[in-house]
């Protein structure tokens, strides 16, 4: 087949947990699926997490086999490091123009041996570890990446050629250019996910400039066994923190930040991280400053109660301000609602801002789908069929449709696959 023109039944955009699940549910019904992922590897946010609530499975124990199942499914084809440029209607189906970005590595021959990576003299901040820790200019994105193919960061490459000499299969190609691929499909699923709300948005919380104030996602990397240090330390000075505090709703439920909604996951991830920290730093004091604890899902309330029993301190209070003392210890100014709303200052060694979720990508231009004021894809029937969009044949799932944890994302993804399958059948039966 002409590699610049592909044909399939369904196109799934975004290879996070939602997109992977949609792709698998369609492929397992016998449909041909193309999965387009913007990054060099599929996996989304979930592959970056440490352990996941409510079961505390390690995130990669759930994600990597899914990634592998996607890679090994004969009905799924992954186009990584690719983005959809435009989508046109084509009868009841669609034609999508995809731009495959140059990896500067020949995908067909690279074996993922990493010899190039070992040879490269250039260290750059590691995006997978949110730029803490370093990685080479050419590398396999992370150890469990799918596909296991190197990618070369031309912006940082000094063109020394060491990688090319090290590569046993001659896969480094400095002259590679981007490639356009045209994909003809009958249905499309948008699963472009979320990004965390910015840590530097709030002046009162130091605009991201305080040394030992981090966000929840960085804490995930600190807690992950594959993370940069494989233990929890203060970013400011590398010291082991003895007192850690979580500030909830930092970035959500805040009109002034343009995020009035609740991000739905941050209460649970904060409790989860607190429990994990309590496990690895048993002597540390952990405090969670919250307005409402929203542990609404199956088994979540018990999770919260367990955390209380473990001695994690839950303080109902509004954190008005975070500053730092001369030792770079963060100081919170908090109104203790349970204690006559008195305002006090408390010093901690480290603060985690429980940042929320906002959409990663706004698909309204390219796909013509309606989005809400925040950019989440909006369903015309949010109750009865939440994965439908205003465009017949285009569905949306996971965190691209609103804040959602993994369990809810997976159900939403299977639901999108169901709706897409029904659409495919109705088109084929000429309905």
């Amino acid at each position: 087949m002409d590699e610049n023109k592909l044909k399939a039944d369904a196109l799934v955009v975004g290879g996070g947990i939602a997109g992977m699940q949609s792709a698998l549910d369609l492929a397992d019904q016998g449909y041909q699926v193309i999965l387009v992922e913007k990054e060099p590897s599929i996996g989304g946010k979930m592959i970056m997490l440490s352990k996941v609530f409510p079961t505390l499975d390690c995130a990669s124990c759930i994600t990597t086999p899914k990634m592998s199942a996607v890679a090994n499914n004969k009905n799924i084809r992954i186009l990584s490091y690719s983005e959809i440029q435009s989508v046109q209607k084509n009868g009841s189906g669609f034609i999508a123009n995809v731009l495959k970005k140059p990896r500067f590595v020949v995908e067909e021959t690279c074996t993922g041996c990493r010899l190039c990576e070992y040879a490269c003299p250039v260290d750059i901040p590691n995006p997978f570890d949110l730029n803490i820790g370093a990685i080479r200019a050419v590398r396999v994105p992370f150890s469990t990446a799918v596909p296991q193919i190197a990618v070369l960061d031309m912006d940082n490459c000094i063109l020394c050629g060491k990688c090319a000499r090290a590569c046993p299969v001659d896969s480094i190609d400095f002259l590679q250019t981007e490639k356009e691929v045209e994909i003809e499909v009958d249905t499309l699923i948008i699963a472009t996910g979320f990004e965390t709300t910015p840590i530097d948005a709030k002046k009162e919380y130091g605009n991201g400039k305080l040394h030992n104030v981090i966000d929840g996602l960085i804490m995930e990397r600190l807690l992950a066994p594959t993370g940069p240090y494989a233990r929890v330390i203060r970013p400011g000075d590398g010291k082991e923190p003895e007192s850690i505090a979580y500030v909830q709703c930092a970035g959500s439920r805040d009109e002034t930040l343009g995020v009035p909604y609740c991000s739905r996951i941050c209460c649970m991830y904060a409790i989860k991280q607190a429990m994990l920290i309590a496990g690895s730093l048993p002597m540390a004091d952990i405090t969670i400053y919250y307005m409402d604890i929203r542990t609404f899902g199956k088994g979540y309330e018990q999770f919260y109660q367990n955390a209380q029993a473990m001695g994690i301190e839950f303080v109902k209070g509004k954190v008005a301000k975070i500053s730092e003392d001369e030792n770079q210890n963060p100081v919170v100014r908090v109104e203790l609602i349970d204690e006559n709303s008195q305002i006090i200052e408390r010093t901690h060694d480290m603060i985690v801002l429980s940042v929320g979720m906002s959409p990663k990508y706004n698909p309204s231009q390219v796909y013509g789908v309606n989005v809400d004021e925040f950019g989440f894809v909006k369903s015309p029937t949010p109750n009865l069929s939440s994965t439908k969009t205003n465009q017949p044949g285009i569905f949306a799932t996971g965190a691209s449709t609103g804040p959602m944890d993994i369990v809810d994302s997976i159900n939403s993804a299977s639901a999108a696959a169901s709706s897409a399958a029904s659409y495919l059948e109705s088109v084929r039966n000429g309905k």
Partner: protein
Amino acid sequence: MTEKTNPKPEETKIGVYVCYCGGNISDVVDVEKVAEKMREHPNVTIARTDMSMCSDAGQSIVENDIKELGLTRVVIGACAPSLHEHTFRGTVARGGLNPYYFHHVGLREQDSWVHSNNPGGATEKAVRLMYAGIAKANLLKPLDMIKLKAERHALVIGGGVAGLRAAYDIAGRGINVTLIEKTPFLGGRMAQLETVFPTGNNAREDLHSLINEVRTHPLITIHTLSELVNIRGYIGNYDVQIRSQSRGVSGDNAEAALAACTQEVPDDFNYGLTKRKVVYRAYEGCFPSTPAVDWEHYDGKPIEIDGQKVIFENKKKTFDLRIGAIVIATGFQPYEPPRGDYGYDELPEVVTLPQFIRYMGLRDGNVGELTWKGHPVRDIAAIHCVGSRHLAGVHEPQPDGILNNYCSRVCCTATLHQVNELLDEYPNINVYDFYEDIRTYGLEHESYYTEASKNMVRFLRFHGDQRPEVAAAPEGDTHPVLVKGKDYLTNGLEIEVPVDLVILAVGMVPRPVDDLVDMMKIPKGDDRFLLEVHPKLRPVETPVPGIVLAGTAQSPMNIQESCNAASAAAAKVSVLLASGQVELDPFVAKVDLDKCTGTGDCIEVCEYEDAIVLETMTVEGNEVQRAVVTPANCSGCGNCVSACPHHAIDVQGWEVAHYEAMVDAITMEVEL
């Protein structure tokens, strides 16, 4: 299989892999040490470790080793087999080996997690478990999956919004669906709502748009007043028996019967707020529109229709169907507080939220002033978490011994939605909202909270172990009821709020489905809701193949979440049935006909219907009885193996010889 493809134990070439499990195992077990020990084993060709064997990279290592080193067996020490045994069988198969030439050793649940305080011991145990795995691997035989024809026909149990959604989606995939609903009418609890969050749409209008799609779909058959009474068989081939009751009235005499009926009973659609006749429609516009007789309450007396005395007769009928997969969508019921709790069932001014919604829906247009039992309503208290978030040691368990310690997820937003609607209409009413945490978690839910605040709802926060109390006000007070409690938004101040009406935001409990649970052998969780296999890997599947869950039968959910779960269930059913064929693991009993003498001891102990039976066959000219297994019915439990006096039965993949070899290996001298 023949000996040729099955090398002798001493000739096997085994690849052994020990997984760090991202730290889950390696934090306790010295994984490198274990691998080192494995290399001493004569059959081990290669022993490796990896951060996560289940990743694509990890799996590729195994695949390559099989191909390049000519491995004949693979043993992987990792998480629980329930998690990734299946994953690794795929790996082994891609490497070119029979997928059952693989053994999975559980080093996480069975070792690192339970011995986290004893790393040395855990490492030794890992070595022993791995040796046992190797011993078993040596004896493995190649097996084939059991392939079965699957009936392209699904049964959906429950005609609420989840069941309807699942039925429609499965049919959309071209698969036949039979939908059974226990009551005479479709719609479930959603029909009892008025406007719904987050759309503000009318619940019954939305519901009926779906009902219309379902009832006009050519592949869907609906049976109301119907229940599952018996089930046999297995995935792809369930034989189910369904019992239907009749409606009692038919098109010709229905309207007349409805008009003539005089016997009245509390109307369960309105949660007992009103009465209805025993010949009834659940609500105007319900589907089916033909009324039905309420058999539970009908007193059996004749009713005079057009001058004729008619006695209604419940003509029950049962019918059988062959079904490939089953969706359970039996839904929830609102928690009903025991008499006296928060004054419920004692004080007439105390209602549950579902009752309140019905009350508001029953009003005849806007009546200027809201009244309750004839009195104007000026002040209302809403109390959250009634029947939810109970604490051990503080709250009494329910009569069944279970503590309702979960959050019911829907009641916060549902309460604030109702309160806002109420205040839109009656801005002068004061609302006091007693809560512990406001859980308006969804994208569009928080706005109900902010709107309630703008509407001047007074929020009062209790602690879970100090919930508010409701009592009758003293004679002559301005209001009939007092709500007392501590408000932790004002430093635990003791407060007493006089009100005209108390709304209890009751939680959700599952509908009683013990009959289904027993018949289908599916598990319930600690919270009584039906239990999924794994919340992330298989969130809508039960451990019984081909039986999946949809909606609030599984846990509290709002409509969107119920419909998503239902569509997800439909996706799983479609995956199972789309090809018309299902595959099962071959771990089932196998009878060695040379040893079997037909004692029938095995049949006595087998707990699964038709899994093993005696059949008459001819051996050397004589008619004899021999045990025969139907693989699809066999669970592989091994009861028969232990019962057979002639050791004629083995469970494939888990033979007695395997266990013996494993026990020998486990008890071997190990030096670390």
